[in-house]
């Protein structure tokens, strides 16, 4: 596969018309991160009701890969419960867009929103978890995100 072949219809369409793009004013959790190498920047807002992601939106600036993956990720996460979202893997996102073989320099573009989503979830859980074992497990999980 040539590297330019990643720019298929779906990627270009998602980048032009992102899904779940915007803000949730009364969010339960919000998180921001950026990619220091390229300046891509993503915020994710979530509403969480009864341990379920009842609404999720993202906003920010990024390349077509970053925007398409953010759209797909928010589509995957919406309506799922927290444990299911914790288990979303990078291939769940990449596979949806046929990007399993994305070159190393672009993988951070594709996975920035996943990192933001998981960080948002950990920050939400961190505030609500009582058991310190669970908190340690959470930290470990956060550290091994990539």
């Amino acid at each position, binding site marked *: 596969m040539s590297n330019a072949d990643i720019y298929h219809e779906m990627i270009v369409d998602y980048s032009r018309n992102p899904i779940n793009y915007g803000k949730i004013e009364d969010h339960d959790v919000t998180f921001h991160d950026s990619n220091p190498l390229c*300046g891509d920047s993503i915020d994710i807002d979530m509403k969480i009701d009864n341990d379920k992601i009842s609404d999720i939106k993202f906003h920010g600036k990024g390349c077509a890969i970053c925007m398409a993956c953010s759209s797909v990720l928010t589509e995957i996460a919406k309506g799922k419960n927290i444990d299911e979202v914790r288990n979303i893997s990078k291939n769940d996102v990449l596979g949806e867009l046929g990007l399993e073989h994305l070159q190393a320099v672009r993988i951070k573009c594709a996975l920035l929103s996943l990192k933001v989503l998981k960080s948002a979830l950990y920050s939400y859980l961190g505030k609500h978890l009582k058991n310190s074992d669970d908190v340690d497990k959470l930290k470990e999980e956060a550290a091994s995100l990539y």
Partner: protein
Amino acid sequence: MQSAQTSFENIRKDFPILERTVRENKALVYLDNASTTQKPNQVIDAINDYYRNHNANIHRAVYALAEEATELYEGTRDKVANFINIKNRNEIIFVRGTTEAINLVAYAWGRKHVKEGDIIVTTEYEHHSNIVPWQLLTQEKGARLEYIGMDDNGELILDDLDKYLATGKVKLVTFSQMSNVLGTISDAETIISKCKAAGVLTLIDGAQAVPHMKVDVEKLGCDFFAFSGHKMLGPTGIGILWTRKSILETMNPFHGGGDMIREVHKYETTWNDLPYKFEAGTPNIADVVGLGAAIDYLSKIGMDNIREHEIDLTSYAIEKLANVKGLHIYGTKDISKRGGVISFNFADVHPHDVAQIIDEEGIAVRSGHHCAQVLMERLNVAATSRASFYIYNTKEEIDKLINSLNKVAKVFKL
């Protein structure tokens, strides 16, 4: 200029990397020269020859090899002095690059002389290397960092400088002689004369200027001058800091260690003479030798010829790019005020996507914030694509860049 024209055609033969292909058998079109330049055989051979025939530590030993190595190392100091017109060779300090040079000033000069309430002035179009060291210093000292703003044409607003100088609190004005993103050539003469009148020191980041135009430090009249070897055909890991002797003598050492001392006793040390006080440890001898070869190479072509070649390429590129529908070029169109650096955005396509698609055609441009996020904020963009030229680039390569942009337009349905 018939002879200069001919020599530019022959120049490509000196650069072995330009013979290779990339991706699917595409000729390499290297347009990321503001980031780093390719190296001619003359530089590669000089480093090779140094390691094969002359390698030894410098300054101390008395045997033949050490003498040769010392001569080669110190010979480059003379070449640097001659190249950018510095009268006193002992004011030239070898460092890793421009970043280290500026950090050295912030640390060894700044920590000694900058106090609470003082102001350091930089500009909105600086590289992070001319912002972050000053943030660290001013935060530590309770001093202030202020910015000379940039107008929509990509030129500095010098009224801002007047405003800060009028406070009487400015200790240093630091600016790049040429922007690494917009290619704007700063009006160094005016900035320095204003600062001199106010009794304020000036630092010039010459990383983008020295490789591309004749620079005369003596004539400029600044107090600190920094540049890097790898952006001017030299190896990575070697750069220059020049500072006036009268200022160097007031500065603390940067690093402690061998070669920078006169006498070391258990609890006190006296410092070596300039410039060695600031060159602790075994230096990057081989790359200093490589830098010497790069200076010889550039001098042979002539810096005025290089500037002329780049003006020719840049005018051509701006004209062609301006005709691409949806393409926006940042910075001034006045070629006398800009070097061979063109930052642009193509419709709503992110620069990373532009760079990746044209990479398939063998074209290497930079995409991103170019270590100038303050400038990106000022331009209100996350990133730009940047094509930057050097002596080995040709108009045919610019045509290839333009053609490759058609592919971007096709993929993104522009």
